[in-house]
């Protein structure tokens, strides 16, 4: 008998699932070069119960959550009661067990000794900030966070699913301030990874410091329509929300998507896959948050929209197979400590953009006058219309095929779907990145031919 089955039998609940998340985190938070706070441990357990009641052809579903096994009986009773209140004409059955793939999502270093892992990374990163200083300008961290998460997730349901996984996350942010005595500037990297080793401080720190140093000399953005090159982090925020929204089966069922299977939605060079099995991908997992196996689903191939992604409910509504995209999405408002309380919805796992054949340098060489963006203030496109506008935090003006002038301020704006039909180049190397408003992408740099840049 599965762990919680007895409780549901006692409550006379026949159809249910229970999602349990146990997470332990620890972090160090920095103020300048000093440690401001050490948080260890940060532990949480959450159980979310969903119950189905059927009456004639109607289906009612209720969900409730609690933070300890002692409260589960009450939680089940509440979910059962809620299910009786909202009987509706929908199709829903909890998924049945299917073979689950294997996927790498655990960092042994975090699993074995997270406190040492955080301390060693902190020491290394602070040491690198002070290395090889420039004589004409100072650099220092103003604040930072270095954190690990170790999570155990299990799902049981009345159809026989009884699965569990262990996964890790590493979160890092560090604001680097530079000054020449009169002017100040900042570069502020923020990143989620599965493994600490997915961030190589020796490789990254010189680039981050250069971005901070260069921003001190930044001028405002130019004004007009130019080729714009976005880095993978910016593409995460630009693409994941609108592409995910218009690729989802629930939006298709509700007639709220502009993507139709077989329609051209992007330039021919564009290919995107939802890759739920990417090794150490941030949303990789053997199973989604309903217990369906995750997989790879082609979204766009040669610019043509190929497939919807579906959770269990909308797969049934559309008469399709679920694609393992019933997700409690991490990102804004949710982190690995509390995502159990979020409802399942259709969402992308890891959006994987197919690399092109050019190097980034070759893409830049092709630009007579344009802009390269390294960080936006906060890029958060409207999922319905895909329209966006965001302030440039760190970027460069490109002139005559060369990086010329650092820029800060001004905006880049447009519609993501217009950009996708106007792709002028895709670099040859993909990078795994998290964004500020979206969670996971594996993407190269992309160049868009004519984008509105708003400057002085």
């Amino acid at each position, binding site marked *: 008998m599965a762990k919680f089955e007895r409780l549901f039998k006692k409550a006379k609940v026949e159809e249910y699932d229970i999602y349990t998340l146990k997470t332990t985190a620890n972090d160090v*938070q920095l*103020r*300048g*070069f000093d*440690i*401001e*706070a*050490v*948080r*260890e441990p*940060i*532990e*949480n*357990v*959450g159980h979310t119960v969903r119950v189905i009641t059927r009456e004639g052809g109607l289906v009612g*579903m*209720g*969900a*409730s*959550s609690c*933070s*300890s096994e002692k*409260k589960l009986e009450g939680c089940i009773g509440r979910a059962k*009661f809620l299910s009786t*209140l*909202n009987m509706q004409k929908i199709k829903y059955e909890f998924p049945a067990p299917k073979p689950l793939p294997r996927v790498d999502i655990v960092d042994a270093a975090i699993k074995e000794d997270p406190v040492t892992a955080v301390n060693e990374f902190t020491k290394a990163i602070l040491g690198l900030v002070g290395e090889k200083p420039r004589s004409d300008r100072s650099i220092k961290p*103003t*604040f930072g966070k270095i954190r690990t998460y170790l999570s155990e997730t299990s799902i049981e349901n009345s159809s026989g699913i009884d699965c569990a996984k262990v996964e890790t996350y590493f979160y890092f942010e560090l*604001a680097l*301030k530079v000054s020449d005595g009169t002017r*100040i500037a900042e570069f*502020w990297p*923020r990143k989620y990874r599965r493994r600490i080793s997915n961030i190589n401080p020796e490789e990254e720190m010189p680039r981050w410091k250069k971005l901070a140093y260069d921003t001190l000399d930044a001028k405002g953005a130019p004004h007009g329509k130019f080729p714009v090159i976005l880095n993978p982090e910016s593409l995460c925020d630009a693409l994941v929300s609108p592409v995910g929204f218009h690729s989802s089966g629930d939006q298709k*069922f*509700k007639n*709220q998507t*502009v993507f139709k299977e077989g329609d051209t939605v992007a330039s021919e060079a564009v290919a995107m896959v939802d890759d739920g099995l990417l090794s150490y991908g941030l949303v990789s997992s053997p199973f989604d948050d309903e217990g369906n196996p995750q997989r790879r689903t082609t979204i766009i191939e040669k610019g043509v929209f190929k497939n919807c992604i579906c959770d269990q409910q909308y797969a049934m*509504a559309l008469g399709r197979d679920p694609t393992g995209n019933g997700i409690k999405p991490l990102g*804004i408002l949710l982190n690995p400590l*509390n995502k159990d*309380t979020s*409802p399942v919805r259709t969402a992308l796992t890891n959006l994987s953009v197919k690399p092109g054949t050019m190097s980034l340098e070759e893409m830049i060489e092709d630009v007579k006058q344009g802009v390269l963006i390294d960080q936006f*203030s*906060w890029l*958060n496109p409207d999922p*319905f*219309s895909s*329209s*966006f*506008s*965001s*302030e440039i*935090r760190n970027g460069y003006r490109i002139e005559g095929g060369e990086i010329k002038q650092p820029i800060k*301020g001004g*905006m880049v*704006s*447009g519609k993501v779907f217009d950009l996708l039909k106007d792709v002028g180049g895709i670099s040859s190397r993909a990078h795994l990145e998290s964004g500020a408003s979206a969670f996971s992408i594996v993407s190269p740099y992309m160049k868009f031919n004519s984008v*509105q840049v*708003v400057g*002085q």
Partner: protein
Amino acid sequence: MSGELDKVYDIFEKVGSTLDGKVEYWDVLYDSQASCSIVKDKVDVKVSTPELEGVQLRAFKGGVWLTSSTHRVEKAAVADLAKRLIKPIEAPRRVIKLERLKAHRLDRPLPAKKSPRETPLEDKLEVVRDYHKLASSLDKRVINTRVVCIDSLIERAFANSEGSLMHQTVPRTRLVIVPIAREGDRIEADFLSKGRTGGFEFIDGLDMEGLCRKAVASSVELLGAKVPPSGELTVIADPGMAGIIAHESFGHGLEADQVMRDRSYLAALVGKKVASEESTIVDSPVLEGGWGSYVFDDEGTPAKENVILDRGILKGFLHDRLSSSALGVPPTGNCRVESFLTKHFVRMSNTYFRPGDMALEELIEPVKRGVMLAHANFGMEDPLGGGIQCTSSKGYMIENGKIAGALTSVSLAGRVLDLLKNIDGASRDFEMSVGTCGKGSEDYVPAGDGGCYLRISKAMVSGG
């Protein structure tokens, strides 16, 4: 938790007996968050009742905060965690001494006539169905309407090594209507959000028909809206956008932990005139009904109103205990956590522009070519660089002193101090909005923002 408060206070005592004399200061926060969420669209209605409960312990030692958090609200488990806080630490380069403060005894709920817990779920469901039915019936171009009703009850108890013992409950109730309009391949959705601290009586008091008509008309209007012009224009910010400007552009730069980090562009400007006479900005957790209101902050400082910008003059920063100790001023009651799982930070509460004395028509009348930003959507802070980014979900073109047509979402960017100096008119309206505020990209707390209509003589805008 009612009825179990004694158990929590027992745990607090145990923490005290474990940590007293072994650290410079300790405090303990009990956090219980229960909410009810109803989300209805044309396919189904989803009802859930998420809960979060736990305890966070903090000890201050040698200038460093040591923290542990657990969902196990049990004496033995919490005592074990308390013992783990008694450990050697590496002293920081700059050791700040935490000033001792007087103890507070306070047990006060924010009022709710119809408590979220006691309002029958059937009643809440019926209201959501009624809103959905009405909003869905008003215009054929609306292909779906999403109605969300969320209420929450946050209960927090606090004790510290100075003898404070405090307890508060904060109920919040919110209704959101999102009509989704479609014509051909064009899909647009605006949202209408109303919320306040208080119970379900707030929903009862709303004008359902008026709100549904307004929400539907706004989404449908977006179907014909044009892309905003890009460049420097005169801008009218509606009260919601004024609130975002106050919050993102100014408030975050006044959070004193940013000063301690040497990351605030406003640090050297206290007492100086940094904005026009028309600009007065207040942060107040005691604003009645404000979405970000509370009785005391999450380290036991009673809430109070703080004027941060008075007729253009920068008055001071928002503080927690540590920053107030470091800068030698009293704490302002602005230390907040998202939950027992997150770190304490200096945060805003309800941040707003005080109204002026002009009518909206008077603000618009002299504008030859400009843009009104309406329905605040989001913003992002830049405390070091002093930049601003705010985005509205729609806008209106202003030509020759008149509203000339709807625009799709509009973003405003530039330098905050330039923007504030360019405010040359404030209306006598006052409206607060419901928001969620992150510190960077984490640690979200409920925050209200708002104010009046503002006219900004020159600001950079673009389609959002």
